[in-house]
């Protein structure tokens, strides 16, 4: 890298690689410990909710976490503003 490189604005490709990897590796690590049934569980819960409320598939979040030695299954559903019965 010479003096001219100091005036270059675009980030180096290595730093782009690092940033992309940092994100994907973190994402894959968080999914790693979770049981295999989680995606299916998510889909079935979504189906049940869908019978009553028209929610966006993206609005259902399921996470398995650790809290003081307990495993916690966290379910979060964002309901649309106007719900239809």
């Amino acid at each position: 890298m010479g003096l001219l490189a100091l005036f270059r604005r675009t980030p180096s490709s290595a730093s782009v690689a690092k940033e992309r990897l940092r994100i994907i590796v973190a994402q894959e690590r968080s999914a790693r410990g979770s049981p295999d049934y989680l995606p299916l569980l998510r889909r079935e819960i979504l189906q049940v909710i869908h019978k009553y409320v028209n929610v966006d598939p993206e609005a259902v979040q399921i996470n398995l976490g650790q809290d003081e030695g307990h495993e916690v299954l966290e379910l979060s559903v964002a309901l649309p503003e106007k719900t239809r019965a």
Partner: protein
Amino acid sequence: MTEIIVVTSGKGGVGKTTTSASVACGLARRGKRVAVIDFDIGLRNLDLIMGCERRVVYDFVNVIQGDCTLKQALIKDKRLENLHLLAASQTRDKDALTADGVKRVLDELIAEGFDYILCDSPAGIEKGAHLAMYYADRAVVVVNPEVSSVRDSDRILGLLASKTQRAEQGNGGVKEHLLLTRYNPKRVASGEMMSVEDVKDILGLDVIGVVPESPDVLAASNSGVPVIFNDESDASLAYDDAVGRLLGEDKPLRFLEEPKRGFFARMFGG
């Protein structure tokens, strides 16, 4: 005490076999009794890199299936008498390798008094790769400073932490080390290649060796003499350092920077 070390990576072509051959020779050169096993069933290659391809009579699967004894299948290295190779089978039968069979062979090598058993893993995460790592005490994860290799290494680290005997028994797990190969200091300096620190940061592991990209590696495999024997090569010195670190020596990393250039060359790049 025998130590079982798996050389693995996930991605193919990053230098697992080159590393297995050089590390095995390096350990043997320091007086250790070493057995190196090629787990790449169907795609035997370690014999070629070690230069003993014409001396393979029996292989790993022959021993597992009882066609011969382990002693008959072990190929003694011509250069180092305390180094032995167990070649992979060229069978296309993927089920030829069994957990039970692998364990029997490893137990027999342990009973024979080997100090180190190196398991050269195939690429991928299929059965061969799984069995290569399953009984390991330590893992050398070979990685290139390149996105797909780093990501695959992380996947392998996940498997080492869950799908190995040590992980299942909960006795501390497999001890993991990173070994970077194809490292090009010049491209790192110009921001075209991730640095050792970058890879270390992403994977969160200690680095046991950095092998610079070198034409000597291809020359070594061409001639069937592992690159560690080429004393004039930086790659050889880097592998020898890594072997020292495996044995607990404290050595600073070398070859992380390109040789110094003159003032003007540095100021104006190129």
